[in-house]
């Protein structure tokens, strides 16, 4: 059976006014939250549980279950924080979503905050996307103006304040507890869990942190029903998601499809790998997910199947690299990224990523031996699982998977005393384009 695309969140993106309040309402927006405000909050949580929605920020934790962890009747203020700090290399879905349709996120926030009984919500958006921040600020202002935010929303008795908060350039703030520290005005460094944010999150209060796409999926679940959502996707990975194709592909871009679609199907839709070239390696969910190769074209892109094949679905950030790409160069650059972005709190990550960088720089220049690969793997063992958060774990993914699939290419660097690839051949303008 061939999977087809299911435009839902992306459905209105070709309308020039898709980002405005009027554009959103003309397309049927701001109806679901009216239904939700008339529901018992517990029934909303149940509907999200029944839908099978799992976190779209990479980890895939069941969203309804997360909401259910918030203690009720505890007399403490609850908080909803939207993680809009999209920074994982390869990941580029939330930014176009917020640019083209910020109101679906605002509506999702109203419903979600009502469900977990939060009267304060925040959108923590990375600071390097100025026009997206403008669109969010305007959407929130317009929603206040329309009476969809603020006190006694549409006479329901429910109050909600929503603040757009810009970050300031730190990948680590996409990690939920680092994000909380940052939002509290500190350096963005992860906290030890437990306690989990559901118990002690922002300002020590019960807090739900969800990805943009997760929250934006909620109005559809309320409007169309949990069964509608669950009718798409696979047994354990229900629903749809935005798949982002980038790199050496004929038509890179955003493709919204049920979970479980394969890269072969997606590549077919995107015109294949660029003309005259073939697939070499790819990331299923950003640079922190172990590399796949052309052996994995038919792996269903759902949480279980990608996991069983040795990687992670992550954020469905499909970075495609063809045979002109040097895998050692790619891995070195990712390692430099992790070393740059390591917050420095935990020694294995801080020092380990530093050593990755030093070693890989040398190996790319051909100044190494096969023994260095064992050292790299040993170093990886000393990073993986040894820090507060997953940044260090993510840093090991490209290193270990590239050695697994492309050991020969590393060795070729050593034999040749340099990189055997022509960088110019990998560029977007190679071949006179």
């Amino acid at each position, binding site marked *: 059976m061939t999977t087809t*695309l*299911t*435009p*839902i969140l992306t*459905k209105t*993106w*070709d309308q*020039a006014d*898709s*980002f405005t309040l009027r554009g959103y309402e003309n397309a049927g927006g701001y109806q679901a939250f009216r239904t939700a405000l008339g529901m018992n909050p517990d029934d909303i949580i149940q509907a999200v549980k029944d839908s099978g929605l799992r976190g779209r920020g990479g980890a895939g934790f069941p969203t309804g279950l997360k909401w259910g962890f918030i203690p009720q009747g505890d007399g403490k*203020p609850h908080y909803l924080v939207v993680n809009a700090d999209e920074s994982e290399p*390869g*990941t*580029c879905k939330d930014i*176009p979503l917020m640019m*083209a349709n910020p109101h679906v996120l605002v509506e999702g926030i109203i419903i979600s905050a009502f469900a977990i009984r939060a009267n304060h919500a925040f959108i923590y958006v*990375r*600071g*390097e*996307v100025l*026009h997206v921040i*403008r*669109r969010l*600020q*305007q*959407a929130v202002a317009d929603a206040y103006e329309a009476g969809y935010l603020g006190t006694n929303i549409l006479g329901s008795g429910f109050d909600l304040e929503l*603040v757009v*908060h810009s970050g*300031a350039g*730190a*990948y680590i703030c996409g990690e939920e507890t680092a994000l909380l520290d940052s*939002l*509290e*005005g500190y*350096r*963005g460094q992860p906290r030890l869990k437990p306690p989990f944010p559901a118990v002690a999150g922002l*300002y020590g209060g019960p807090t739900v942190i969800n990805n943009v796409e997760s929250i934006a999926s909620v109005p559809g679940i309320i409007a*169309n029903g949990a069964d*509608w959502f669950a009718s*798409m996707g696979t047994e354990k990975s229900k629903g749809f998601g935005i*798949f*982002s194709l980038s*790199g050496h592909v004929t*038509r*890179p*871009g*955003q*493709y*919204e499809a049920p979970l479980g679609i394969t890269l072969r199907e997606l590549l077919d*839709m995107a015109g294949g790998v660029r003309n005259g070239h073939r697939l070499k390696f790819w990331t299923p969910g950003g640079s922190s997910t172990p590399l796949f190769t052309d052996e994995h074209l038919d792996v269903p892109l759902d949480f279980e199947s990608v996991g069983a094949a040795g990687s992670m679905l992550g954020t469905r950030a499909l970075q495609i690299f063809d045979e002109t790409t040097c895998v050692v*160069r*790619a891995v070195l*650059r990712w390692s*430099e*990224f992790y070393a*740059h972005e390591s917050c420095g709190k935990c020694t294995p990550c801080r020092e380990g990523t530093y050593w990755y960088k030093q070693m890989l720089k040398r190996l790319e220049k051909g100044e190494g031996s096969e023994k260095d690969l064992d050292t790299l793997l040993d170093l990886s063992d000393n990073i993986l699982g040894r820090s507060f958060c997953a940044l260090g774990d993510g840093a090991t993914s490209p290193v270990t998977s590239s050695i697994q699939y492309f050991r020969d290419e590393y060795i070729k660097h050593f034999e040749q005393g340099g990189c055997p690839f022509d*960088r*110019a051949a*990998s560029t*977007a303008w190679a071949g006179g384009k």
Partner: protein
Amino acid sequence: MSAEEQRDEQRTERAAGIVAHEDGAALDPEVRARLERDAKEIIARYPKPRSALLPMLHLVQSEVGYVSEAGIQFCADMLGITPAQVTGVATFYTQYKREPVGEYHVGVCINTLCAIMGGDQIWEELSEHVGVGHDEATPDGKISLERLECNAACDFAPVMMVNWEFFDDMTPEKAKQLVDDLRAGKPVAPTRGPSSVCSWKQASRVLAGFNDGRAGEGVQAGPESLRGLELAKREGWTAPEPEETTK
């Protein structure tokens, strides 16, 4: 010393406070009054005052152009924390600059995918063309350059940013032309953004949470963002209808 090593060294020195920009200058009273008024508004947005620190540092940059010593002292005074605490935060985040940047701060994504798609070549040619390296500004204060990590626009690779606006699908030629136009004061429009690029200080004010009223300008989506939707429309593919799925 390679550009990369230089970058590391600069970062280390900056983290150690060795090369913080020399400025003993106190804030102009008028500037200080404006900052106080705006800072109070920022603080009022949050349940706890300290949450205002990140936006306040953006606010300082919107007036001073970078996070000066006087700006740090100002934040500390307003929030009742120490200058060391503010400095600790200001040095953690890459968007806060400890020395003046250009009126147009130009970034080139050099993370893996953009680098391979041509970002490395763009960086090399542009840096040579402008005559400055990573985190450096031209003597006339017009342009500064930065090697950027992933900016969440990978389907538009190679990507550049000017004052945090998107310039998609770049080439070395387009990059050099862009910088020449900025230096010449010609109007420059981002691919996905408002109809013209604003200044670094104006951009910083938006980051501090002050809406500049320009959200309505520019496209709703770039061509790459629409690829899947357009294909679905051509093929007649849609999501299931709700009534088909209810029991």
